[in-house]
């Protein structure tokens, strides 16, 4: 008889699950939005994701639905195979291998984990499962995408544990006069994860993925940020790149970007923070007059004496335009819908980078997050980034990036069909190489001549930058072969 494989579960409630899916990572409570974490085992193991082998202790099952009435329990089944490298801790905080066959009943995995580590989400009843699925229609960022929800009669038992407190097994027991005293090896506290920065990086990648449709340059920048290749980054974009890769550079522009990005990432109200940052006293003589001018420009943005296009025309530097746009548009979604003829592909790129950072993964538009495989890919990227920041040895099974619209339009096999689907034939030229004879309306080539389709970039940008690529359109394009 074949050995039954072990299953590993993170027990929680549907409220925490929704939050983890929305934020794109299975995280510790400090990775949750303020006041959105509901009690479960995560808070008992700071910095780790505790996963239980095959069964859940009764008190844990009670704990996860204890904070408010009518809460719903669920078990996130973790696929340990998706963690390809690194170690976990056991109940005594000793390093152990991450293995399905581990003899430990509890493994503590260093947080965060990507959503791709979720094998399935197990429910106690079919009603609970359906209820959670239907909650997708009530939210802009709870998107199950290809996450599997599961109910089976057999798995009902997982919710009916009669183990009174399996937790005691996780501690060294000292018995005195029949009383159990829990003692525990002092846990080594993991280095805290800078979650806002991780989520900002995720937002930046989603935003770049969307804007990669705009042309060759935009597509290249997306690839650069994905693959850590800074070859084609100019000064402003290089500053953002260096910020996320913590490359030190004390030039004026880098310093200004570092401070601006810190503010955008750490706080909710960016307008107020930007003004306070620019008007602050800690800039020193080297920066002061520049920052004061910028602050004045932004305060003046709110008045109605001139039109928006006049205000933007006066802003000559990328950073000035960027700051004005941060004041003008309050979400990435409204930026995507916004058109002003004067903006170039480069302008939109910079706006998208910074709006992705400000709004973070959680506020990325639903219609983009629903692009096939994008949510999973970005989640993996965020988890990789977090673990590289932590200098942890954990590695995850890699996921390749979904194809960008530009990739699809430029791949030989899909270009023609994609141009047709997007109705952008006016932006395409057909090029035939070789000598030809002209007979009436026909050009005759000797042998087999292959036509090549070429995108006319100027025309293309004009049309595509004002075209929204919805979920259905993108997913149809991604399926082209």
């Amino acid at each position: 008889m074949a050995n039954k494989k072990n299953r590993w579960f993170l027990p929680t409630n549907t409220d925490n699950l929704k939050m983890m899916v929305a934020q794109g990572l299975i995280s510790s409570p400090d990775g949750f939005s303020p006041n959105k974490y509901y009690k479960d085992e995560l808070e008992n193991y700071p910095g780790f994701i505790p996963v239980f082998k095959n069964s859940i202790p009764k008190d844990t099952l009670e704990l996860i639905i204890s904070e408010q009435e009518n809460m719903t329990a669920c078990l996130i089944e973790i696929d340990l195979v998706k963690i390809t490298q690194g170690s976990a801790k056991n109940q005594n905080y000793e390093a152990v291998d991450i293995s399905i066959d581990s003899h430990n009943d509890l493994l503590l995995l260093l947080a965060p984990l990507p959503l791709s580590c979720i094998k399935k989400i197990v429910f106690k009843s079919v009603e609970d499962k359906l209820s959670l699925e239907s909650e997708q229609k009530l939210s802009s960022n709870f998107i199950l995408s290809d996450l599997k929800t599961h109910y089976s009669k057999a798995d009902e038992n997982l919710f009916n544990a009669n183990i009174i407190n399996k937790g005691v097994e996780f501690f060294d027991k000292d018995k005195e006069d029949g009383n159990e005293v829990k003692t525990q090896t002092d846990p080594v506290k993991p280095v805290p994860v800078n979650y806002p920065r991780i989520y900002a990086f995720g937002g930046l990648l989603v935003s770049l993925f969307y804007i990669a449709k705009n042309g060759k340059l935009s597509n290249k920048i997306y690839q650069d940020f994905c693959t850590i290749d800074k070859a084609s980054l100019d000064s402003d974009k290089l500053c953002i790149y260096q910020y996320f890769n913590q490359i030190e550079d004390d030039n004026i522009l880098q310093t200004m970007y570092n401070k601006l990005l810190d503010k955008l990432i750490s706080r909710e109200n960016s307008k107020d923070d930007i003004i306070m940052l620019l008007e602050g006293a800690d800039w020193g003589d080297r920066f002061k007059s520049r920052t004061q001018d910028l602050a004045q420009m932004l305060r003046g943005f709110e008045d109605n004496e001139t039109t928006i296009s006049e205000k933007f025309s006066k802003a000559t530097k990328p950073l000035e335009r960027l700051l004005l746009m941060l004041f003008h548009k309050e979400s990435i979604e409204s930026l995507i819908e916004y058109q002003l003829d004067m903006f170039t592909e480069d302008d939109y790129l910079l706006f998208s980078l910074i709006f992705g950072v400000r709004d973070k993964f959680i506020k990325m538009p639903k219609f983009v997050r629903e692009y096939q495989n994008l949510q999973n890919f970005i989640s993996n990227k965020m988890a990789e980034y977090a673990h590289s920041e932590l200098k942890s040895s954990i590695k995850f099974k890699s996921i390749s990036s979904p194809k960008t619209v530009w990739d699809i339009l430029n791949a030989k096999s899909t270009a023609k069909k994609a141009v047709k689907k997007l109705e952008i034939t006016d932006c395409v030229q057909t090029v035939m190489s070789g000598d030809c004879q002209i007979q009436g309306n026909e050009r005759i080539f000797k042998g087999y001549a292959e036509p090549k389709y070429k995108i006319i970039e100027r025309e293309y940008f004009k049309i595509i930058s004002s075209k929204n690529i919805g979920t259905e359109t993108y997913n149809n394009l991604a399926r082209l072969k």
Partner: protein
Amino acid sequence: MAKRKFRLPGVEDLNKDQDRVLRLPEDGQFLIVGGPGTGKSVVALLRAMKFSDNDYLFLAYNHTLHSLSKQLTGFDLKADTLKSWFYKLQYKLTKKYMPEIRDRKIDYDKVIEIFKENEEPASDLHILIDEGQDMPIKFYDSLIELGFENFFIVADQNQQITDENSSRKELSDILGLEVKDVIELKQNYRNSHPVALVAQHFFTDKSSPKPELPEALKAALGTPILYEYKDFNQCIKFILREADRDLTNLIGVVVAKTEILDICKGKLGGVEIELDNPRPIIQSYSSKNKQDVNIDFSEGGVVVLNDKSIKGLEFDVVFVMLNGFEIYNNDEDSMRKRLYVMSSRAIKKLIFFQSSENDITKILPSNNILQRKELS
């Protein structure tokens, strides 16, 4: 023109009190209270969406709110206005006209008597009521007499704008709820701190604490302004330039009387001005017209309304035309309540216009809360 959408909240946008509301079971009696911008209507709409396959009805107090709710949810919301539905319900049961004390003033005592005698089986209908404080308690009494059992009411007694209304205590008593069962939403998500400060200035209820203010910000951006003008056309141009900044913004212009509404609408459509974009859509509705609301809330642009019609609505920018508002019988509190509702509709900006000092000026907040400027 730019499309607007009812933006579904993200998981992180709902606080734990709102989560609690959304987890409430389908059957039962529930009362949700909270000040302006605390998300009462949002949770009511989300509940309607959650149970959209079942037997429920969403009822709003005024036509504009009813129209907005229907348009923005993106699905076929089963909705009506409170009074209109009540008239139809009564007629359907009795085949007689509604007993009234005077025109459109329902004689609830008689209705209760009629409903008591009704022998039809109790209804399973789930009733969701927005702005529940604006109906008298006898309205609820009569529904209970008819056998309705499932109520989900959202209310704020500080936003009562009718003379027939219900207090929080009356509502919880009639639903048989203990104090702990009433869910209170406290966090103001709509208004910026400076806008909420102005709204709070008009708060009248001495028996309950003032609504919580959003976090104060240091840069003092977006402080509401009272502009004194000499030429009314300057106000109109100001409004048009504001609308031109962002075509997805919905701008509310609140006026006191239908005559002013007509003048504003005409000038907004006619005055000469250079803009970046085509002139915004100008829409209006007056409750006096007794017509269906013909406002498309899914488009950005300017909507001119009287203050009775703006209940429950929200706008990116609100302009209040103070000329025409009057304090009757020295009842300042009544005017304050109206100004409380008007000011708290604004999400980003709140601007008042007046041509000269009048009755209202004395109840306006001081300079540090409401800046004074001249419009030239």
